[in-house]
């Protein structure tokens, strides 16, 4: 096995290097084109910014702390809302996945809610919670909850029956069966739901922050529009992209890879 792994690595290293070179070249050209566009005077002042201006704004905003505060506020909302969704989603998913009556009733309702873009909850959130943290967290919860619930449900329904049969045969039942067999067996699908839930939550949070202006990433972006500061808008958008990519590649990517490999779903 070790031999096979080393062969693959040996074989793929030159290709990997070439790939990185092509990507670096692509982004260099992109920066150059961006710079040329920004210095071409096609836009009126403040409505477009070149890479140098954006870099300057990024450095300035990180140094005076406004971007760091904004990132902290938005990530905190995301973390709290997502944790609530996780707990509620697993409970709801277990209920729907394991009980026919919950499935027929609650299951269809959740499928319906899943079809509603969660940013549509923002007006109600503001109506119910006022201009507050709860309103933003509520939008995040609504963004992630149904994806996680449906992921857990799908995981339970797609569990190979032999796992349940084997476990019951070996004396597992009740909570032990659910916690030690049904939930772990459902993990590959649960992770798909977690990943989708996070991306929905992230998108709806950004949208909600554009409407409810506080010191946050969405708020800062809206600030940029108010002060016709394209450089700030580009900087915030870059930060949002980088955060999204980082969370995906540091949490959900590896999680999905490990689980898919261990469950024998990929080599």
């Amino acid at each position, binding site marked *: *096995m070790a031999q096979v792994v080393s062969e693959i690595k040996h074989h793929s290293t030159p290709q990997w290097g070439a790939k990185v070179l092509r990507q670096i070249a692509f982004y260099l050209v992109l920066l150059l084109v961006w710079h040329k566009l920004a210095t071409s005077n096609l836009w009126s002042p403040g409505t477009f910014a070149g890479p140098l201006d954006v870099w300057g704004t990024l450095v300035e905003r990180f140094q005076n702390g406004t971007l760091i505060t904004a990132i902290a506020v938005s990530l905190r909302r995301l973390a709290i809302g997502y944790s609530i969704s996780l707990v509620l989603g697993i409970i709801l998913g277990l209920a729907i996945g394991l009980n026919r009556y919950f499935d027929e009733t609650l299951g269809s309702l959740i499928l319906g809610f899943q079809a509603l873009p969660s940013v549509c909850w923002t007006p109600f959130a503001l109506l119910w919670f006022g201009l507050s943290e709860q309103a933003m967290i509520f939008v995040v919860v609504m963004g992630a909850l149904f994806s996680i619930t449906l992921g857990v449900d799908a995981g339970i329904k797609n569990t*190979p029956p*032999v*796992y349940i*049969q*084997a*476990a*019951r*045969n*070996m*004396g*597992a039942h009740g909570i*032990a069966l659910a916690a*030690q*067999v049904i939930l*772990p*067996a459902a*993990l590959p699908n649960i992770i798909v739901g977690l990943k989708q839930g996070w991306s929905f939550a992230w998108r709806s949070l950004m949208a909600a922050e554009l409407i409810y202006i506080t010191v946050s990433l969405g708020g800062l972006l809206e600030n940029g529009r108010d002060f016709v500061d394209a450089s700030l808008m580009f900087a915030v958008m870059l930060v949002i992209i980088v955060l999204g990519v980082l969370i995906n590649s540091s949490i959900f990517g590896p999680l999905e890879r490990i689980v898919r*490999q*261990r*469950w*024998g779903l990929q080599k």
Partner: protein
Amino acid sequence: MSQQIATTPQQFEYRGEDAQVLPAGKVTLHVENVSKTFVSKGRIVEALRPVDLKVAAGEFVCFLGPSGCGKSTLLSIIAGLQEPTTGRVWANGKQVKGPGTDRILLFQEAALFPWLDVQRNIEFGLRQAGIRARERAAIAHKFIETVHLKGFERSYVHQLSGGMRQRAAIARALAIDPAILLMDEPFGSLDAFTRDRLHTELESIWAETQKTILFVTHNVREAVALGDRVLVFAPRPGRIVREFRIDLPRPRSLEDHNLVDQSAEILQVLRSEMVANEEEENDGTGR
């Protein structure tokens, strides 16, 4: 074809489907008038016609037949995972009402849990029984050695070959110490070499542990190589058509000419049943 079979001399004992076989020794499993029918698309399907069977403690019984003959259904009923339409099953002096740790079922796909390593898989049943960690580990180690998986305690299922997975599944079953092992084509997806090795290993594990084993297979030679008795099943409707007692000395070799001869005999019986079955269906005189 059927005439040819009729003239073949029987060199070993067989019994018709009506015969009640009483095994020597203590009866550990008693199947009484068990049948299974279900309704599919408005038609009644006879998955298994009524079966009577007694199995002695420590006996190795093979269920042999093509797919759809009810052999796995019978095994699953004995395991308590399916309810029979008629009849009852007694195992170890108690009537079967559901799955129990006195009868452990093994599957073709091994059904090891991919989220647990080999040792934790083997400890699974012990954990359900509330046995403490140190004792669990000791029992698991013992059976890891029995199935020659030492060094793979911390491996996960995706890192094991098909044969190693079946070994781990056998260890997981043995750790619970059931009186009866129910094996549903456990070696069906393995290559011939691995299967041969596992036959030898299973035979020695059986001799050592004195477990009662019911072994489902569609491989005639596998049945003859392993079984004290071979029950031959036929499909549509699923039923037992013949029963053979295999008195060849152990350990058995697949190359042994007696074993090859007996396999050929059983295969002929199976074929003639299938042919008779098809003719019946073509005549329309069947069901």
